[in-house]
């Protein structure tokens, strides 16, 4: 129990630290690596929250696919003078204030909404987070959103092909 809690606090602290580093590094590639660390630590928290499938998807899709895609583009574009440019816009103190304010608001709101569990109607079957239950939910009550998500991905595929085509190149 104590070990698990210690692991959780490590994951939490590491997530915050790598998130902060990710958005403040000058070199985009370094940023990407810190985001990778963030994704993996968040996946760890998912595991502790008994969301195993979510953790797997986080590692495979987020850390595996999306991040590699970002890295590809960063490498492809080869931004040589990035190091010379200012890291932030001139208004970064304002941005920092907004960020802190957002955090505070979100934290207060989360604190206020958290005790909702007691008030909820008991649905009977407890949810354990197993893959089977999640699958039944996805293809049962969530069948329509599932299909909609496939349309979103289809649109993204068509869009990416259309947008990345070269001058005069036919799709």
């Amino acid at each position, binding site marked *: 129990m104590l070990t*698990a809690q210690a692991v*959780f*606090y490590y994951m*939490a602290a590491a*997530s915050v630290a790598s*998130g*902060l580093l*990710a*958005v*403040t590094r000058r070199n985009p590639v370094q940023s990407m690596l810190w985001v990778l660390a963030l*994704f993996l630590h*968040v996946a760890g*928290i*998912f595991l*502790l*929250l008994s*969301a195993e499938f*979510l953790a797997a*998807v986080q590692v495979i*899709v*987020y850390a595996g*696919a*999306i991040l590699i*895609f*970002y890295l590809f*583009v*960063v490498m492809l*574009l080869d*931004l040589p*003078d*990035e190091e010379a440019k200012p890291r*932030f*816009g001139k208004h*970064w103190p304002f*941005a920092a204030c*907004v*960020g*802190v304010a*957002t*955090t505070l608001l*979100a*934290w207060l709101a*989360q604190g206020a909404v958290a005790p909702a*569990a007691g008030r*909820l109607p008991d*649905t009977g079957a407890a*949810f354990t987070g197993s893959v089977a*239950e999640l699958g039944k*939910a*996805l293809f049962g009550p*969530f069948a329509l959103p599932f299909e909609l*998500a496939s349309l*979103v*991905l289809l*649109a993204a595929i068509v869009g*990416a092909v259309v*947008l*990345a085509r*070269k*001058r005069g190149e036919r799709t």
Partner: protein
Amino acid sequence: MIVPMSTVLAVSAILFGIGVFGFLARRNIILMLVSTEVMLNAVNLSLAGFSQHLDDPRGQVLALFVIAVAAAEAAVGLGIVIALNRNKPGAGVGDLTDLKQ
């Protein structure tokens, strides 16, 4: 419950704030996109937290859809970045000032 709920929610709130800060402060387009990914991770964290707290699969399902849409967004966003870079190599948001009068 191994994990203290309030801490999960606090981490989510802090990450969201970091994402907002990064989005508003950075001038590099790709790093702005990365900041929105940080925000989406914060959302997923609180969804998973709520899901366990409420004993309800809905939160996790929502988080899965968020990841799917994030993948789609990344594909479109990076496609535009590539197209932009072809016409204006090395452009940051600060250089995008043609659409004004």
